[in-house]
């Protein structure tokens, strides 16, 4: 009797609510396994399936590049439903079904993992997730580069969020820090490990290169942090718009200094970096960046940034050394921007000063404010969504620059602090069984 009544009620509940109810019991582990399954399915039967439903190849970025291309839907309109069918059945259906089916065993597994040290279960999650990403990106080189650039965008966005979100100052110099990191890291790898036109023959055997590469990135980060010190000393004496202005000036100074330095190639840039930044390297550095920044902003020393932002006078009165806090945070943030710049240079395998201008700044700021201030989730969401959107809307050409700003404006109207703002990333909570 009761069950039938329950069923009747169940049928009255809306579609989305029912979906929501089915999703709530699924732990993160099951989702990751679902993504892995989707990647595997695509690898095994993706091509055959695409051929079967009349697509020339596997849709590379969820079909956006096919659906939005004018030439395609003018000539063969059937491509659109086929692409949608492909995306639905290979990604949504597989992820949903696998996550649902594995929910119970995954919950048990997650429960077991909770008893182990946290880092072991985190590594297991990350390992499965990376495998899925790797298989997914194996389909085409375009996916690999998009993925790498997205991961780098996460690092830059997160590092800028430390200043603009957590600390509440407005920094414009992150492209400058990226440039410093990119050039410093490139200089290290080019001087020591490659025969190139700027720095001559390699000093060390090339086989050492991949092992020294982390060091090169750290040097890049440190150079950026020293640059940050130059900005921080004059601008943190007082509060207000000083940082915004000085940091903007700094960005332009870095750009024009590099343009005029013939040693590093001037405006023509610096090329032929060795191919050290493969997908696993970029992934590991991104995870490291998220981990360290998340650790920092959740410690009392990091929360001091929030105290400084919300009321600096009260922070001082509560024993917080506000000046030191601001300086450390700014240099820390610049360090990660520098590391991201170093990776960027080795992914593209070419840097020129033009890359690190006002447009880059606009992109990064958009990602920070779109994703959400004061939140690691927000930065990840903002970087991934805007970066992927930027790629996916490429066929729309000029309209891309209308759609993305309109989205930004809508977010600013309805959620002024961004999509996921003021939320702590608690890893334990994220991976717990549900």
């Amino acid at each position, binding site marked *: 009797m009761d069950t039938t009544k329950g069923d009747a009620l169940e049928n009255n509940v809306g579609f989305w609510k029912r979906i929501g109810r089915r999703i709530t019991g699924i732990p993160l582990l099951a989702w990751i396994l679902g993504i892995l399954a989707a990647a595997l399915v695509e690898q095994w039967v993706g091509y055959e399936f695409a051929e079967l439903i009349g697509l020339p190849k596997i849709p590379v970025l969820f079909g956006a590049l096919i659906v939005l291309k004018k030439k395609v839907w003018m000539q063969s309109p059937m491509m659109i439903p086929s692409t949608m069918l492909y995306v639905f059945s290979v990604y949504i259906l597989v992820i949903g079904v696998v996550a649902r089916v594995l929910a119970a065993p995954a919950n048990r597994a997650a429960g077991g993992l909770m008893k182990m040290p946290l880092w072991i279960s985190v590594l297991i999650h990350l390992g499965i997730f990376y495998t899925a990403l790797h298989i997914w990106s194996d389909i085409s080189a375009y996916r690999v580069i998009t993925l790498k650039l997205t991961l780098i965008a996460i690092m830059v966005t997160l590092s800028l969020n430390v200043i603009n979100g957590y600390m509440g100052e407005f920094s414009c110099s992150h492209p400058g820090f990226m440039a410093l990191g990119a050039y410093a890291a490139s200089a290290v790898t080019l001087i020591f490990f490659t025969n190139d036109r700027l720095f001559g023959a390699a000093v060390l055997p090339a086989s050492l290169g991949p092992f020294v590469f982390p060091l090169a990135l750290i040097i890049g980060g440190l150079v950026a942090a020293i640059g940050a010190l130059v900005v921080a000393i004059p601008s943190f004496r007082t509060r207000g718009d000083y940082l915004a202005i000085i940091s903007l000036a700094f960005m332009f100074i870095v750009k024009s200094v590099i343009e005029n330095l013939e040693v590093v190639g001037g405006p023509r840039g610096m090329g032929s970096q060795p191919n050290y930044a493969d997908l696993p390297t970029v992934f590991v550095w991104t995870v490291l960046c998220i981990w360290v920044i998340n650790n920092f902003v959740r410690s*009392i020393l990091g*929360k001091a940034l929030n105290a400084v932002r919300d009321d600096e006078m009260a922070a001082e009165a509560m024993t917080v050394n506000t000046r030191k806090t601001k300086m450390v945070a700014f240099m820390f943030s610049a360090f990660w921007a520098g590391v991201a710049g170093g990776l960027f240079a080795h992914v593209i395998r070419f840097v020129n000063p033009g890359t690190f201008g006002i447009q880059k700044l606009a992109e990064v700021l958009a990602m920070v404010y779109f994703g959400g201030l004061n939140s690691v989730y927000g930065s990840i969401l903002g970087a991934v969504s805007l970066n992927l959107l930027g790629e996916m809307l490429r066929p729309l050409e000029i309209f891309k620059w209308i759609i993305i700003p309109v989205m930004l404006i809508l977010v600013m109207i309805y959620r002024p602090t961004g999509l996921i703002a003021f939320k702590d990333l608690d890893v334990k909570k994220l991976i717990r069984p549900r």
Partner: protein
Amino acid sequence: MPLLHVENMTHYFGGLRAVHNYNLAVEPGQVRGLIGPNGAGKTTIFNLITGIYRPTEGSITLDGEPIVGLQPHEIASRGLGRTFQDLRLWRHMTVLEHVKMARYSTIGYGLVGAFFGTSRRHREEEAIERKALELMRMMRVDDVAEQRVTNLPYGAQRRVEMARALAMNPKILFLDEPTVGMTPGELNEMMDIIKQVRDDLGLAIFLIEHRLKMVMELCEVIQTLVFGEVIAEGSPEEIQNNPDVIEAYLGKDTVET
């Protein structure tokens, strides 16, 4: 020797003399009051002692050490806790985070601990959290530990500020109009809290207050400040009957015609 000793402190804002020849000696465990009409310079005196402004002249010692010219956070970590008249809470932070933050100067794990989440950091932060929860229980805000402060009623916000000031383990507590804008019920509650702080923790307290009921009941010694100068100092009874104080608050009783 007094815990806090201010001698001949004078301060000018440009050409305006805000405080003139101010003297203060607070003994450990003593509760002292500072009253005076609006604009008399009471909060300026607080800001001078806590290091927000640097006095033009005069010396200040806390526990025997001179503190003039130190940064506010340095003075605070030497044991001078304070609350603000206009409730300076951090609006995006939870109650627990507020109270933990006041332990900033005692943190020993450093940046390495903050970046890499070492076990030392977890140990230290757990100890800080235990202490914070203890103080929050005392101030009866432990049940809202995970709430943002902006969601709390006014009286509770005041108690959070008090818990935060106590968390820095002060030797002396400065309260800048702790009952401003409170209902009579909240006022009595705040008086109980101040008494509790004095009796249980044995802190010296220096408070600015407008409600005479509160000052008369709590303070051992009261100073009256008018235009930056102390015109009277003494026990509550003495102050209440002092003709200069009555004049400053109510004006002269005869009017020249």
